[in-house]
């Protein structure tokens, strides 16, 4: 017998799980940049085989980030709120991943 319910539950669990994790993380990033703190990550240094971001592009991006941090239409309290919610999003995202891993470990049940 083919267990279609299992297939359905795998599909459902992965689509809901992955979407939630990605959405929470993306919301966190969005709120971070709303709060005037857009993350800026320089690509790590390694062999010259990879050119995903050129130094010029990285520099331009850094400049934009510095500029954005200076001007924001939000009040200080609003910024603080956005930052707090952003952090909450990241925490929820991490908690969701850990919950997912916890679910599959039989030792915990």
């Amino acid at each position, binding site marked *: 017998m083919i267990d279609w319910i299992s297939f359905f539950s795998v599909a459902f669990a992965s689509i809901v799980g992955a979407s939630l994790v990605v959405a929470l993380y993306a919301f966190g990033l969005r709120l971070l940049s709303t709060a005037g703190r857009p993350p800026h990550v320089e690509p790590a240094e390694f062999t010259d085989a*990879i050119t995903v971001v050129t130094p010029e592009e990285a520099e331009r991006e850094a400049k934009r980030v510095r500029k954005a941090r200076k001007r924001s239409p939000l009040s200080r309290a609003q910024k603080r709120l956005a930052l707090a919610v952003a952090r909450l999003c990241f925490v929820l995202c991490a908690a969701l991943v850990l919950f997912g891993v916890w679910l599959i470990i039989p030792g915990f049940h």
Partner: protein
Amino acid sequence: MDHTLLIVVLVVVLALFFDFTNGFHDTANAMATPIATGAMKPKVAVTVAAILNLVGAFLSTEVAKTVSGGILTAEGPGSGVPTQIILAGLVGAIAWNMITWLFGLPSSSSHALFGGLIGAAIVGAGFASVNYWVLLDKVVLPALLAPVIAGLVAFTATKLAYVITRRYDGLPDGRAGFRYGQIFSSSLVALSHGTNDAQKTMGVITLALIAGGYQSQSAPIEWWVIAACALAIAAGTYTGGWRIIDTLGKGLTEVKPAQGFASEVSTGAAILASSHLGFALSTTQVASGSVIGSGLGRRGSRVRWKTARRIALGWLLTLPAAAIVGAVAALVAVLGTVGVVIDVAIAVALIVTIFVVSGRQRAGAAQMKPTAIAKGVSDVAKSSRVVKIRKVKPKRPKRPKKSEVAAGPGKKKPKKKGKGKTKKGGKNKGKGGKGKKYTQVKGKKGNA
């Protein structure tokens, strides 16, 4: 009885070697994207991947139970699949892996393993030794469905990631932060790889133990089997790290951090959920499905059907092809002791060849010989070429207004007005707006 013990020991050794090569093969799958987008340095990435593979192998035993207790009937010495047939199946799987690796064909070590075992079992122990329903339910259908599901999940997740972070005001959208996220998402992939792939080897070893009469059918997986498989896959992952650098130069060029994050979370979620329900799927295929799906989730994406077809064909071929190789190995094995010795000799020869060729590849990589390196590209990296991304400039309707406000009523205002006029003119005249708009603006400029 000594005979059986020897064969079981050989199965354990070969299975662990298979596990090692699996880790060796698949480091790139988990860790290529974070390195490509600059989220992690290669050495750190490889170490993290190895540790998480180790941890992942201890998490669950559902897949191992599927392999040891479901697909083949092995109830002890004298009934079901004998140990030498399992050995033959393993030799078949290693041989098929070797062939695909040498010729750079898209393949899946998991399917090679199942194919080899099934082929060997059918030849060595008859058609009745395979539980076809379990095979269909736990291996074949997951193989077909999982990449599609993963692709769908990745498509949705990528769309979400882009829509949520999209900004129209020209300010930084914070997508660079997905690079940090990728450190965790790729770790999740490494973890899920450990849970699914290491368990297949555990299952094969347990199957041999059951067939040899050293373990009862209902007993849980022995702890030393779990530990050995975990260590083997972790060691393989760590050793396979150098191939990543090759992969990067050739493969993943267009994977953006947001896309990489979404595709990895999807891969991790799909594999973990499947592992939990005992589906033994190919992690490579799931990761490939996710990469393709997430590519399609981006704007301006188009499928290169030719590449897609080639990859899909390779996937579909793996199981039957490995089954044939396994069947041949089983034909040799049923000859008796001589056959087993021949099979083992073939396996040893293959292992030596793998080491020699990989050593040469490594030397080739050092000397930048492109032909040698091209074979080291991971299947997932190849699958990223299925989707072609046309560069789409993000629409920023508000931006001209802002600069206008910032600059005050200066030079830019008349230019804007002019644009508006030409637009209206274009609309009134109906079709062919673009060309006319352009000439009108040009004409105006010429006048001024």
